[in-house]
């Protein structure tokens, strides 16, 4: 018998060739930097046979508990700040570091479960949270003064660093910086959050990492796993709706299938808003309902019991969803002390509760005209993440499809009938662990199809064969591979048009602030590697003095060209992002000098938006900073 210590021992099919290894990337590496988990997948760049694309998912060594190193394909995106007396000397060493700077992964989640005040979670959601400075130490948000805080940016860097170190430990012959690295971000990430992700990659030495939107990555993974059969499953004229429901976020995208000279082309036509709603909300919902039931019986639950309950609800939910024969699952909240038999609480979770709470609560049968409800936030709100107020994912989806009615208007191959009230998807691709549950997937499909049926449109079909947990990382690795011209690529460009706010020139009226105009500086769908200049609109900027602009984005206005000035716009058409800041450095100039500049927007090959102020006189350029989020 042959005993491997690890199941996923990496078998290198090709011996490293010292000559080519340095010059050319050996692997295409995809990193899914998820809200709750990180995954790294990779594929050899030089596949022997193009039809047999092979890829692996890295088993990431990580501390599971003090002194115990375990390998798992998922690295939980958690960071724990231990007290100096909490852990024994040497019990936090990893194979590559005797004392890592931060505790991340399974151990962080494990320790943080019992000491939440020291746990950093959902750092990724903070990156996209307007109104906070992502580089200032603000996490854990609820921590007492003496606990050293980290910034969301630092936490993201720490997860990436762990992945890098693990890679170098397992592949010492192939430095990650020399490989083709693709990092995925939610499609709904704004330019500032994308910029921060790229910066985090640079901080770990990954200077050439590319960004890819997660729903696109999921579609790439589906294309890869179909082994060429996707051309039969998708036809010209299809609109594929990608629904990605992860642990903490829901991400929506629409991808159109068109034809060009006989080849199918994929274009990402729309992305949804950043919705902080996911599987964790479902587990919590179940736990709270069980808690309420226990409290009716006169049993009060402490916070550690609620936590244990959330865990067992998650397991029980999966069992109920996966076995149609099981109608109830007993739940036991084990006593914390060594006396297990006395003092453990027993309750149960029934199929009924699970379907009412999860299927009807998160995926209610709604009309396509429904909008997610939002109540105005009360004035006193502690600093926290802007979690979605409406838990109904179907309502968010309905609003998204209705809002994107005209998303395909520029594509001739897609026929959107006159009477349509929403953009009708013809195919649906699922991603994210939540949709592994058959009943949830079925309900979501039936809701979408009921909308289609109401307008006499054919039912959408579900694209099958996706690996819901690992698809994003796998798709990212495959994207790195197809970038070398070895397969179909999804076109898309920027998922929004961007505007700066300028005051309109009008005579001053007492008591009224000058009206704000939105000046388009980057149109919708700008492709990577292109730039747009705006030479006719000049600003006089003072050297050495930072100037701030209000910054807006629109996910629906596709027709605005660079230089378009908007006086009025619909409320949900344009949303305000964080301010941008321009500081003209003093190099070779007198402070106080006024320089006329115009703005220039470029989408980098990496996938980030870059704004520059360009002087007309001598063409010198200054970078415009996105991440100037004020901490107020």
């Amino acid at each position: 018998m042959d005993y491997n210590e690890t199941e996923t021992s990496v078998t290198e099919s090709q011996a490293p060739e010292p000559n080519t290894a340095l010059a050319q990337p050996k692997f295409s590496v995809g990193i899914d930097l998820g809200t709750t988990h990180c995954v790294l997948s990779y594929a050899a760049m030089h596949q022997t046979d193009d039809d047999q694309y092979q890829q692996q998912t890295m088993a990431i060594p990580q501390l599971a508990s003090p002194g115990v190193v375990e390998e798992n394909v998922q690295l939980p995106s958690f960071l724990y700040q231990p007290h100096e007396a909490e852990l024994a000397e040497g019990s936090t060493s990893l194979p590559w570091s005797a004392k890592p700077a931060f505790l991340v992964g399974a151990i962080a989640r494990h320790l943080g479960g019992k000491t939440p005040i020291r746990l950093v979670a959902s750092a990724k959601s903070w990156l996209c949270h307007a109104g906070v400075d992502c580089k200032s130490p603000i996490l854990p948000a609820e921590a007492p003064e003496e606990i050293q805080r980290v910034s969301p940016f630092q936490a993201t860097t720490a997860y990436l660093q762990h992945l890098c170190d693990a890679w170098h430990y397992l592949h010492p012959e192939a430095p990650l910086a020399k490989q083709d690295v693709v990092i995925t971000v939610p499609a709904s990430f704004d330019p500032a959050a994308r910029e921060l992700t790229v910066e985090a990659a640079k901080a770990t030495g990954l200077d050439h990492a590319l960004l890819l939107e997660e729903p696109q990555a999921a579609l790439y993974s589906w294309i890869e796993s179909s082994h060429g059969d996707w051309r039969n499953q998708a036809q010209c004229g299809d609109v594929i709706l990608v629904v990605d429901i992860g642990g903490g976020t829901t991400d929506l995208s629409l991808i159109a299938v068109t034809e060009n000279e006989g080849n199918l082309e994929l274009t990402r036509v729309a992305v949804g808003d950043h919705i902080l709603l996911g599987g964790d909300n479902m587990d919590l919902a179940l736990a709270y309902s069980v808690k309420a039931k226990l409290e009716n019986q006169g049993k009060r639950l402490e916070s550690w019991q609620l936590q244990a309950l959330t865990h067992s609800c998650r397991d029980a939910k999966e069992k109920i969803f996966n076995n149609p024969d099981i109608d109830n699952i007993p739940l036991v909240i084990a006593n914390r002390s060594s006396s297990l038999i006395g003092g453990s609480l027993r309750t149960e979770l029934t199929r009924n509760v699970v379907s009412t709470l999860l299927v009807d609560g998160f995926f209610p049968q709604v009309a396509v005209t429904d909008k997610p409800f939002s109540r105005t936030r009360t004035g006193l709100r502690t600093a926290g993440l802007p979690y979605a107020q409406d838990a109904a994912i179907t309502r968010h989806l309905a609003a998204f499809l209705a809002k994107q009615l005209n998303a395909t208007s520029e594509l001739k191959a897609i026929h959107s009938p006159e009477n349509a009230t929403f953009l009708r998807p013809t195919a649906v691709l699922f991603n994210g662990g939540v949709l592994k549950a058959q009943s949830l997937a079925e309900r979501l499909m039936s809701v979408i199809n009921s909308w289609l049926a109401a307008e006499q449109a054919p039912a959408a079909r579900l694209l099958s064969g996706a690996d819901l947990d690992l698809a994003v990382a796998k798709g990212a690795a495959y994207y790195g591979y197809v970038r070398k011209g070895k397969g179909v690529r999804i076109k898309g460009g920027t998922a929004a048009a961007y505007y700066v706010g300028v005051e309109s020139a009008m005579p001053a009226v007492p008591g009224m602030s000058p009206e704000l105009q939105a000046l388009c500086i980057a149109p919708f769908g700008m492709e990577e590697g292109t730039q747009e200049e705006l030479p006719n609109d000049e600003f006089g900027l003072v050297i050495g003095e930072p100037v701030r602009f209000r910054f807006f984005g629109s996910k629906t206005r596709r027709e605005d060209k660079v230089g378009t000035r908007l006086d009025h716009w619909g409320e949900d058409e344009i949303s305000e992002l964080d301010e941008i800041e321009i500081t003209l450095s003093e190099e070779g100039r007198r402070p106080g000098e006024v320089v006329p500049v115009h703005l220039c927007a470029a989408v980098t090959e990496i996938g980030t938006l870059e704004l520059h102020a360009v002087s007309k006189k001598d063409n010198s350029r200054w970078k415009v900073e996105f991440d100037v989020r004020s901490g107020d």
Partner: protein
Amino acid sequence: MNTLYTIDLSLKPTTFDLWHVCLAGTVALLTLLLIILLVGLLLTALRCKKKSLAQTSDAATSEPAIKIVEKIVEVEKVVQAPAPEPIILKEASSDAALQLLSLLQQEARFIDFIKEDISTYEDAEIGIATRVVHEGCNKVLNEHFTIAPVRTEQEGNKITLPKGFDAAAVRLTGNIVGSAPFTGTLVHKGWQVTQIRLPKLTQSHNAAILAAAEVEL
């Protein structure tokens, strides 16, 4: 030509020349060889006896021993002579055993459950706790071991064992007579571990602490 070589057995050599040295050396060498051979034979005889005992110990318990390559080296040092195929008994690694106990305690509250006096509880109460233990043990087994049946045939069916079957993997019981192939009823399909994925431990980790005491502040 006429020189007569008389052999006087009582004669003692007065000079110690090279020939004598060689002679003495050869004698010493032969004696040593003889001793080694005898010791070797004796050891083999002992091993054969012990082997039958060792076989009865469960396969699963000896498996983690794969990890303790260093310990095997130590034992080799003790037996210096190049005796014929020195047979070393595998010593089960205590770290791996402790690690497994610790995993069972963490996930399944195994030690808590076994150490608790169950005589004072009702069956229903024990049943509640058993769910925790069963679920956790199941998780540990699935996460850290790949367990497969030895024989894939249905239990209760007749199976035939060819000549030279693996006697360690299939145990014959009952009316063992005649010679292979043997035909009999599969009473138990057997279990084997095909893969072990135990976590690694840091140098300073004290595996004897199965579960740290917990103090809430």
